C-alpha cells in the first residue's frame, strides 16, 4: 500500500520502489539509535548508575555522538588481513540483517514484500549473517577473531534448527508461511494471539495453549543465540575473545557490525511477536475504527508493532545484564539435548492436535 501511495504520488515505479525499499533502512537506523541508548540506560539502571546524561535530555543524543565519532575514526585495516573479504564482511553481515526486514509486516499497509514464503525467507536470509561473520573472522587473520567466527557459525547454525521447528509448529496451526496471513489470523483481540492458542474456536484452543507457550520460550531462547546476545554471546565474549569476530574492525566497518546486531535483535523480536503476539495487531481493537478514521489504523498498527518489538528487545537487554554466558559445550548441550527434542515433541503434539 505504501508502494501504491508513492507510485501515485510520483507517478514512477522506480522512485516508489526505491522509497519503500529504503524505509526499513531508516527504521533500522532510527531504531538502532534508540536501542543503543536504551541498552546503555537499562544496563546503567540495573547497575545503579545513571548512564549517559550529558548529550541531550538524559543523554538521548549520545548515540548520535557515538555514531559521528565512529564515522570520523580512521578505518584501520591491518597489514596481514585478506583485504577483499575484510571489506565485504561487514556489508554482507548488515545485508543479511537488513534483507530480513523485507518480509516483515510493519503494519497492514506496509510490508516490503508479501511473499508467501515470508517466514522461511527470513530464516534463510538471516543465515547470510553467519557467512559475513565467518568471513570477518577469517579475513582478520587474528586467532581471537577466528575463534569468534567459528563459534558463531556453530552456534547460529545449531540454533536455527529449534527455531525452524517452532516456526513449523505455528505454521501447522495457521496453514501459511506468509507473515501477513499469520498476523491476520491473530486478530486484534489479545486472546486470539497464538500464545493463547490463536483464533480457534472451542476446546482445541485451550489444549494448544501450553504447547504454544513452550514453543514461544524455545523460539525466544534460540533467537537470543542467533543474535549472539547473552547468555549466548560466546562469539564476542569480551572476557575471553576480546572482541570476537570484530576485534580487528574499527570506524565505519565496526558500525556496520554494530548496526547489524541491533537490526538483528529487532528482526528476531519482530518475528517472535508476529508469530505469537499478534504481530502488528493491537491487543484491544483500534482507536481509528472506533472514531471512524480508517487511515489511522495502519499507523496504530505500526505503533503496536514497534512497541512489541521494542519490548522483546528490552527483555533481551534485561537478560544480557543479568545472566553470565554459557560455555561452548554447555551451549551445544542446551541446543541439541534440550531445545531440539522438546521443540520436536512439541511440534508432533501440536500437529496431532490439529489433525484431530
Amino acid at each position: 500500500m505504501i508502494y501504491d501511495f508513492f507510485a501515485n504520488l510520483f507517478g514512477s515505479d522506480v522512485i516508489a520502489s526505491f522509497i519503500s525499499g529504503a524505509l526499513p533502512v531508516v527504521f533500522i537506523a532510527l531504531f538502532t539509535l534508540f536501542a543503543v541508548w536504551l541498552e546503555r540506560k537499562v544496563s546503567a539502571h540495573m547497575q545503579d548508575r545513571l548512564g549517559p546524561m550529558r548529550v541531550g535530555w538524559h543523554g538521548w543524543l549520545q548515540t548520535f555522538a557515538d555514531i559521528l565519532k565512529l564515522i570520523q575514526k580512521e578505518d584501520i585495516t591491518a597489514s596481514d588481513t585478506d583485504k577483499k573479504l575484510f571489506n565485504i564482511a561487514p556489508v554482507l553481515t548488515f545485508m543479511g540483517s537488513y534483507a530480513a526486514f523485507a518480509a516483515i509486516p510493519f503494519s497492514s499497509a506496509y510490508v516490503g514484500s508479501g511473499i508467501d514464503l515470508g517466514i522461511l525467507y527470513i530464516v534463510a536470509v538471516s543465515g547470510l549473517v553467519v557467512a559475513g561473520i565467518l568471513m570477518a573472522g577469517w579475513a582478520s587473520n587474528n586467532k581471537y577473531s577466528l575463534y569468534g567466527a567459528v563459534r558463531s557459525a556453530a552456534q547460529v547454525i545449531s540454533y536455527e534448527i529449534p527455531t525452524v521447528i517452532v516456526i513449523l509448529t505455528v505454521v501447522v496451526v495457521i496453514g501459511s508461511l506468509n507473515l501477513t496471513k499469520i498476523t491476520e489470523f491473530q486478530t486484534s483481540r489479545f486472546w486470539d494471539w497464538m500464545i493463547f492458542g490463536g483464533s480457534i474456536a472451542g476446546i482445541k484452543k485451550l489444549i494448544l495453549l501450553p504447547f504454544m507457550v513452550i514453543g514461544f520460550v524455545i523460539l525466544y531462547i534460540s533467537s537470543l543465540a542467533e543474535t549472539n546476545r547473552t547468555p549466548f554471546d560466546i562469539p564476542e565474549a569480551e572476557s575471553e575473545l576480546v572482541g570476537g569476530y570484530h576485534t580487528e574492525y574499527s570506524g565505519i566497518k565496526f558500525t556496520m557490525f554494530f548496526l547489524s546486531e541491533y537490526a538483528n535483535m529487532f528482526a528476531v523480536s519482530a518475528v517472535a511477536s508476529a508469530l505469537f503476539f499478534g504481530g502488528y495487531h493491537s491487543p484491544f481493537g483500534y482507536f481509528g475504527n472506533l472514531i471512524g478514521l480508517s487511515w489511522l489504523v495502519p499507523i496504530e498498527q505500526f505503533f503496536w508493532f514497534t512497541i512489541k518489538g521494542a519490548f522483546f528487545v528490552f527483555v533481551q537487554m534485561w537478560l544480557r545484564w543479568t545472566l553470565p554466558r554459557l560455555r561452548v559445550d554447555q551451549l551445544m548441550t542446551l541446543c541439541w539435548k534440550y531445545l531440539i527434542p522438546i521443540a520436536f515433541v512439541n511440534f508432533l503434539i501440536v500437529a496431532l492436535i490439529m489433525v484431530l
Partner: protein
Amino acid sequence: MQKLTKDSVHPKIVQALLGADSHITIDDALENEMILNMGPQHPATHGVLRLLLRLDGETVIACVPELGYLHRGYEKMAENMSYLEFIPHTDRLDYISPPANNVAYALAVEKLAGITAPPRAQYIRMLLAELARMCSHLVAIGALAMDVGALTVFLWGLREREKILDFFDVICGARFTTSYTRIGGVASDVTSDTMKNIIAFIDQFEEKFDEMERLLNGNRIFVERLEGVGVISKEDAIDIGFTGPNLRASGVEFDLRRATPYLFYNEMDFKIPTYTEGDCLARYFVRADELRESAKIVRQIIDKIPNGEVMLNSPKKVLPRKTEIYTKMEELIHDFMIVNFGINPPVGEVYSAVENPKGELGFYIVSKGEGHPWKMKIRSPSFANIQAIPHLVKGQMISDVVAIVGSIDPIMGEADK
C-alpha cells in the same frame, strides 16, 4: 650468571609449551593445534598476566604463564631507602587492598626493631585490614562474575567497595594509596563518628551482599560454569604453595590469623570458611563467606576498641608528632635523625607474615643495623597462586581459563613486585 635477554627467553617459553605433557591430544589430530597468546593486554587477565596457551580446538593442552610485565624492582628499591620511605611502596603491591599491605609491612619492621604498637593502633590496623579484605573480596567476586559474563555483579561489588574507599579517605586521607601505618603505630586516630558510620555501612552491607549472592548462587549458568572447573587437590594445593582463600577452598583449614595470631586476632570470634571441592565454585564460596566473617570481625573490633595513643612513645624508633617537633628540642633531634639516618634496627633477620586477602603476605628483612634493609624479600601470595594456573587449566576450555584465572584472583602488582 647468564644474562637473560629477550631472544633467550622466548625459545624457553616455546620449549616449555612443547615439552609439556600433551596426553590429552587425540592421536590422529590433523595438525589442529595452535598457540594462542592471551595477554598481557587482554580483558580477562587481571592486569598484565600473559598466558601462552597451546590449544587443540577449544581445549587447552598446555599453558605457560609469563610474569614480569609489571616488575618495578621493589625488593631492590627497598635496599636503598629507609624503612619509613618504603611504606608508600607497599600500597602498590596488592593494589586492591593497600591497608592490609601497610599493616603487614609495619608488623615486619616492628618485629625487627623489637617494638610493639599501642593496643588502639593495633585495633585500628585490624579494622583497616578487615575492611581491605572486604574490598578485595568484593572485587574478586565481581571480577570472577565478570569473567564468566555477568557484568552487573561487578558493578554492584564496586558500589559497595566505593563506600569502603570513602572510609579509607576519611581515615587515611587517601582512597586508594593509603600509606596509613607508621612504624610503631598508625598515622592518625579514627574518630568515633567514623566508627559509627562503619557500623552503619556493615548493617546495610549484609543486605546488599545477599542481593549480590542471590544473583549468582541462584543462577544455574553461573554455577555450571564454575562447578568442577579447575579442581586442585589438597596435596597439590599445599605443594604449589597456595595460601589464603584458594587453599581453604581445597579443604585445608589454614589461616594465619588463627595459626599464628598477630595483632588481636586471638580475641576475635570468627570462623574460617573451608570447602573441600577445590574447584572455582568453592573458591568463590570461600570468598563470599569470608566477606561475612570480615564484617563480623569489624563489628567486634569497633565494639572492643580501647582508648589511648595510636603511636608508640619510643623516640629512637618512632617518628614524633609534628606539634612536638616544632616546640621541643629533643623531638626535633629525633625527627632529624630518623628521617635522615633511619631507625637502625638491630642486626638480624626476620620473617613476618600476615593473612592478606589473597593469602600469606610475608616480609623477610635482613638488617645490618643500618637505616635501610640489607635485603628484603616479599613473599607475595599472588605469585605463588599463579603457579597453579598451568596445572588447573590443562584439559579445560578457553572459557574456563578466564574463570580459573578469575577464581585464583591474582593481582599482578604483587606477583611482579
